[in-house]
């Protein structure tokens, strides 16, 4: 039956139809129908949606609609993944240019209060073509190195667009322009919080994991305790650390000099560290338990000491699993670090919560977009490293 079905593919024209492409086309057409850009007289008032035709000069808007139409048509037909990838990326580039041009076109000259933001239509088109690109990439099964290279190219392109000033009239970048020093200050804090906590957790978690692996009675106790830590809501854990740290800062000489205080970065860093321990410790234990017993026996037979076995055999073999734990924690902490803003710890969360307070969507985005971008990039890079190491491990 399946043989007959595959023979039919060549004959019936609708079998050339890509099912995922149908979904992409539906989302894309909805995107074309909804407002492409949002115009607001100032940053707080509700916006007025404007379609593609109103957002650009007539000639350009026809060209844009034609380009989107062509890309959606490509999505509908079963082409090779590489063709779809190229069409998808091309469409995304066109969208990136168009939204910048629309912002410049819609902003009245010499008006600093007017705001132009991407509308629902833009976001749906972005979703449609991202879906197309994601599907093509999944099917291409790129090697880890190429995935990271592609990420670098995309980030480079976004950097180039930002530098060229093409997006300068977009509301998000106007928010940025009015608080650029604060943005970079919070970006530094965010990176210190996320990467600092993961680094400390790795330095503490791997030895703890090795200990739990070697000393079996300890294992359940440590893992259960860390499990319970995970259930404490992050804002509560941040809050509960304020009082003890304030006490330490006030009563232990020298503590406040090295930056320990009740509010600010110290409780946030400790809370993020506490959340990071479980995945790292448990993955270290699971990784070490998964090492083939015969390999360990062989190493023992060769006269390796405990320490040599651990460093030369067991840890290298467990590395992919341990790294997976670190990847989970890093992505999670980049997101959780936003909550540090609630206790004065800084980070991109400052903009998110300020934005919620002022109901200023652009300010929320100024905090949320870099956070999501950072988490996404960290996930892609660490996934690639894990896969690369696993391939090498299998090859050896």
């Amino acid at each position: 039956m399946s043989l007959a079905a595959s023979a039919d593919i060549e004959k019936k024209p609708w079998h050339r139809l890509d099912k995922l492409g149908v979904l992409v086309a539906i989302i894309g057409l909805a995107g074309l129908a909804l407002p492409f850009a949002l115009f607001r007289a100032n940053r707080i008032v509700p916006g007025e949606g404007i379609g593609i035709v109103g957002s650009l000069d007539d000639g350009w808007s026809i060209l844009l609609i034609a380009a989107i139409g062509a890309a959606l048509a490509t999505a509908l037909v079963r082409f090779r993944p590489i063709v779809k990838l190229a069409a998808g990326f091309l469409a995304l580039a066109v969208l990136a240019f168009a939204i910048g041009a629309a912002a410049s076109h819609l902003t009245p000259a010499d008006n600093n209060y007017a705001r132009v933001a991407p509308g629902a239509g833009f976001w749906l088109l972005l979703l449609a073509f991202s879906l197309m690109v994601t599907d093509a990439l999944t099917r291409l099964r790129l090697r880890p190195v190429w995935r990271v290279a592609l990420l670098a190219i995309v980030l480079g392109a976004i950097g180039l667009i930002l530098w060229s000033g093409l997006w300068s009239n977009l509301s998000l970048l106007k928010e940025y322009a009015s608080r650029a020093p604060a943005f970079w200050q919070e970006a530094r804090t965010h990176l210190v919080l996320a990467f600092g906590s993961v680094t400390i957790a790795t330095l503490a978690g791997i030895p703890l994991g090795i200990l739990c692996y070697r000393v079996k009675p300890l294992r359940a106790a440590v893992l259960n305790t860390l499990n319970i830590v995970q259930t404490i809501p992050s804002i509560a854990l941040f809050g509960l650390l304020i009082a003890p740290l304030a006490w330490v800062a006030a009563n232990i000489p020298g503590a406040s000099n090295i930056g320990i205080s009740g509010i600010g970065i110290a409780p946030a860093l400790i809370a993020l560290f506490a959340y990071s321990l479980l995945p790292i410790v448990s993955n270290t234990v699971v990784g070490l338990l998964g090492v083939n017993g015969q390999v360990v026996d062989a190493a023992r037979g060769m006269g390796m000491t405990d320490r040599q076995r651990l460093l030369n055999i067991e840890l290298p073999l467990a590395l992919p699993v341990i790294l997976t734990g670190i990847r989970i924690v890093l992505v999670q902490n980049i997101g959780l670090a936003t909550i540090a803003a609630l206790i004065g710890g800084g980070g991109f969360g400052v903009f998110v919560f300020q934005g919620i307070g002022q109901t200023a969507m652009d300010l929320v985005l100024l905090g949320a977009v870099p956070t999501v971008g950072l988490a996404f990039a960290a996930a892609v890079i660490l996934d690639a490293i894990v896969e690369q190491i696993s391939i090498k491990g299998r090859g050896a």
Partner: protein
Amino acid sequence: MKIGLLIRLAVFLVLVALLIQPDLFQGFFALFARPTQPAIYNQGNLLDITISHLTIVAIAIALSTVVAVGLAILVTRPFGAEFLPVSRTIANVGQTFPPVAVLALAVPILGFGTAPTLIALFLYGLLPIFENTLTGLTTLPPNVIEAARGVGMTGRQRLMRVELPLALPVILAGIRLSTVIALATATIGSTVAARTLGEVIIAGLQSGNTAFVLQGGLIVGILAVLIYDALAGLERWLTARTGQKQAAAN
């Protein structure tokens, strides 16, 4: 095992007492508040807030379960097979979105209150359940499926009587993960005016009252541990049940 059950029962009773008669714990929480500050949350009834918190989480997770299991079934059928690889990637990428960002971005569309929290918890709950259902449905022993096909079951019968029951423990593990995440994440919903236990914690943060922070945090933590254990117990029971059935069939 028995001792564990007794401890959990005791913890549950303490939690109930704290919610119904918080004044009983006045002395304990007063240790964490300054003398001039109230020791027990006084801007609302703890029991009401807890029920509201649990209701929001329950609705969100019920919705996530229906949608995520439905989608996972769709992409594992021949009709939706083309969507399988891309849906895996989306589930992976989706997990990189921090809950705070999802919550904050839902506010401009839905306004302040319960709705954005519900949507954020729903979206965030989808991914673990979807991934686990996918794992459960794609790693079934092939000979069991062959046997079901061999006795003449239709696709729908195989799904309802064989595949879903066998995958149920794994699906439930996903629901458990989503529920625990949602219980903690719901507290952040209070920053957008949803009625959850985050209200108590944030009131404590704003007035520098550690007793409030501790109360809110303790209630959420205990709820999470108890619900986690209950769902884990249910999973073990289900696994044992399907295991027994398999043994009997052999």
